[in-house]
């Protein structure tokens, strides 16, 4: 059964309501990521912000990128970050003093950057601005494997190199361990 263009009785369009809810979830969870004391909770909150961002991508008419966001960010990068947290946090690595000493300067810098971006975005008139259109996934595939095939291959090589490099950096060094013991 098709639902209408706007919410019944209230009269707000579904798109707007979804955008407000997703944007609020995104901003609140992002603020929690950078301010919470317990770093495991920061990681879980990061997952929430990735999920709401996937919702915004779907709202922008890009289902393929939304699905990729769920697969890569929520499925892979969040899990990677959570495992790294479990591997690196000691109990005495303090929960006290979450921030550096220059936290106020950082806050001012972030506010300046946010304001500059917002003011620039609001005052610029963009050329060729049209209405929101959704992207056809078949077109994306055609473009990716035709015009962008070289970046695609380079990214695949880069990913392989990154995985090999990651394993090399994070593995235990057996020689040094045995040297320590003897």
């Amino acid at each position, binding site marked *: 059964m098709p639902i209408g263009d706007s919410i019944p009785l209230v009269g707000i369009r579904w798109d707007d309501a979804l*955008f407000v809810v997703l*944007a609020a979830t995104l901003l609140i969870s992002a603020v929690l990521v*950078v301010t919470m004391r317990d770093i495991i909770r920061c990681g879980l909150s990061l997952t929430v912000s990735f999920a709401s*961002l996937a919702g915004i991508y779907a709202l922008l008419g890009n289902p393929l*990128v939304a699905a990729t966001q769920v697969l890569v960010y929520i499925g892979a990068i969040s899990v990677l970050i959570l495992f*790294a947290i479990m591997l690196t946090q000691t109990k005495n690595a303090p929960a006290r003093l979450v*921030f550096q000493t220059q936290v106020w300067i950082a806050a001012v810098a972030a506010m300046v950057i*946010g304001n500059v971006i917002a003011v620039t975005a609001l005052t610029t008139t963009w050329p060729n601005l049209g209405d929101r259109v959704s992207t056809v996934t078949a077109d994306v595939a055609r473009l990716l494997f035709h015009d962008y095939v070289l970046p695609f291959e380079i990214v695949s090589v880069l990913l392989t190199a990154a995985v090999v490099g990651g394993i090399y950096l994070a593995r235990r060094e057996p020689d040094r361990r045995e040297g320590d013991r003897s």
Partner: protein
Amino acid sequence: MSNSLDSYLVLSGLLFAIGTFGFLARRNAISMLMSIELMLNAVNLTILAFGAFIAPLKTHAAVIALIVIAVAAAEATVGLAIIIAIYRNKKTPLVDEYDSMKD
């Protein structure tokens, strides 16, 4: 509201600012990496917003966003591996205690 480019750009600007704050202010190396992920996501949101509202960029934006996601995944892999390697030597995840180059 959801049909204007400006709201998406302001949203991504705010997300980028939050990420900047986290990167500059947190002491924990993994928190800094999480803030970098937030900033990369803000950039991706900008790309896709432009793609959705400017017709000639429509398909290109999706392709570029996919490539950015792949590169961000590579960055996260190497970054976390470096943090784990440093942790194994220094036994602390706090960046202000990584000061052996000072001596």
